[in-house]
């Protein structure tokens, strides 16, 4: 499904290499986790895949179901089925959460040549999904993420993911800043979307989240590369011993 080969990325304004040859394949139906020290390039990878400006791809490729992502505009990648749950969801004063969601859903449908969702249909679906994530009506009415707590912002990301129903979901530290209950809610939201046609790339610092979202494969990223991959036990190893052993092993 998601195929990343030898991806090299540097900053546009600065001669600074951040990704130094990332290779990664996420198959449909699978959950891959990426762990790694701060500053290793995890967020950069998620941004580059979803089309944020300011980065230059100097080598390598990234495809989703065979279609190259890197030439597409961010909105085209979204319409192609890619979704990023942001590490730091953006506040948008003046734009209602509901308006935002409906605009997004219908923009993607339009881009794919599908009919727009009717207001009634949309409302019904958004209410049901919001309820399962314990997002109340007030949060739906308020401007996007404005005045939301950390946990509310992350739940709002999952709500968007559920409504947009993407093929490939990237979650960037969706667990950071969440208490145990909020994390369970988020994990349940993600698990509800797991199916054989959908891939997940879950970026996290902590094994904790992976207790709730069971990964098929765990990758360790350091200094702009995937340095080790393995099963769920790799996450436990990191939890117990930190990254030092793995980093030393690789060097």
């Amino acid at each position, binding site marked *: 499904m998601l195929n990343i080969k030898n991806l090299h990325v540097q900053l546009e304004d600065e001669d600074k290499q951040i990704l130094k040859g990332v290779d990664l394949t996420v198959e449909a139906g699978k959950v891959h986790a990426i762990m790694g020290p701060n500053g290793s390039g995890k967020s950069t990878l998620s941004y580059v895949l979803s089309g944020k400006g300011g980065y230059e791809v100097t080598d390598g490729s990234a495809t989703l179901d065979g279609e190259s992502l890197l030439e597409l*505009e961010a*909105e085209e990648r979204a319409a192609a089925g890619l*979704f990023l749950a942001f590490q730091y*969801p953006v506040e*948008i004063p003046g*734009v209602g959460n509901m308006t935002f969601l409906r605009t*997004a859903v219908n923009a993607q449908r339009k881009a794919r040549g599908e009919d727009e969702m009717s207001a009634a249909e949309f409302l019904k679906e958004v209410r049901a999904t919001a309820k399962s994530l314990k997002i109340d009506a007030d949060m739906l009415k308020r401007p*996007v993420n404005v005045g939301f707590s950390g946990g509310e912002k992350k739940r709002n990301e999952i709500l968007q993911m559920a409504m*947009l129903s993407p093929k490939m979901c990237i979650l960037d530290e969706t667990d950071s800043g969440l208490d145990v209950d909020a994390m369970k809610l988020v994990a349940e939201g993600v698990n509800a979307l797991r199916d054989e046609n959908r891939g997940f790339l879950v970026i996290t610092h902590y094994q904790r989240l992976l207790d709730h979202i069971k990964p098929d494969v765990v990758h360790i990223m350091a200094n702009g590369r995937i340095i080790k991959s393995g099963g769920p036990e790799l996450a436990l190893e990191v939890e117990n011993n930190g990254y030092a052993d793995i980093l030393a092993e690789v060097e």
Partner: protein
Amino acid sequence: MALPELKKTATEARLNAMELPEGGCLVDARRAALSRVQTMGLPNRRDEYWKYTRPDTLTQDTAPTAAVFKHDEAPIFGEFDCLKIVFVDGVYDAEASDDFELEGVQISRLSEIDAKDIHWTKDLYGVLEARGQDPVQRPLAALNTAFANDGVAIWVTGKPSKPINLVYNHNSDSSDAMLHHVIRVDAGAEATVLENGPAAARFNKCIEVDIADGGALHMVCAQGRDHERRAATHMFARLRKESVFKSFTLTVNGVLTRNETVVELLGDDAVVHVAGACVGDGDFHHDDTVFITHEGENCESRQVFKKVLRNGATGVFQGKILVKDTAQKTDGYQISQALMLDDDSQFLAKPELEIYADDVACSHGSTSGAIDEEALFYLQSRGVPLNEATDLLTLAFLAEAVDEIGDQDVAETIVSRLENWLIRRH
């Protein structure tokens, strides 16, 4: 003090080209206004109050021509049930206007009043304008009081069931129009006045508003879509105890617009909100100049001005809150913001507070900036195309001003016109 020679000559040249309407009960007010103009002189670019906006084309004796802009958008308030009063290039159009029959309001034309010896308008015409000449001079308003020969006097005695819609059509490339309206709102009475249209190649409009205890007036104005038209407007409002005055102005295009609003909060517990949203590109120059004086206690004033500028457009804001020593518990708020859709535009702002009372809460802010790139990417990452995402954020930027409109339907109409303007630029 004698006027500088240049100003004197320019003022005389303009005045010589005009004729004072004669006779009737307004003639004294007109003569007094004329002498105010002669004393003050018309503004020129050396005047501090005209530092950011060049008045030349507003004061010169012939109006620069402005092509009538043809478009297929329906009149903005056409859908609403209103009492419609139409002016074409500043001249009343009886054919296109409704009868002035509406319960709770009495309406007369200025030209009729001019022909009478006694009329209530006499106590207001030019009175608020004259008061508004201090501490800052507004000669173009005095010029209007002296020479405007059309307009309406609206006396709100009750709560009319529908808004009064003043329509300003522009038909001639060289029209030079002056309209003067007087609006009196009795105690406890309430009305809505909607205005729309570009009015003329050059338009000088003056409105005097006097609201008695507990009265309320809501005004929404849309200044048309003509690109080349010029407008200098003044609104003078006097508010008594517990009265409410809300005004919102939409400006779309126009090579030159100067909208001045002068409000005196005389009674206690009065509320005034003055708001404006403008969008323009290229030659567009838009100036909001506001002066609010708090004299009564516990009054609230809000100024909310938002400007969207692109492709070399200029936005100006001069806003002042003056709190006199009697005006304890004043709640004053002022915000002026510009959103630059590119690097070529400019926003010039001069926010001012002058406070002589000690128990007041006043805040003001002025910012200019570009579209928030992070928000833009967030929207795009959800599948919203760049153009649409930019429009959404632009409308969000304007929302605080549009939200000042009390009527939901009117507000939605304004938003849709703003959205259309943005979409036409995709």
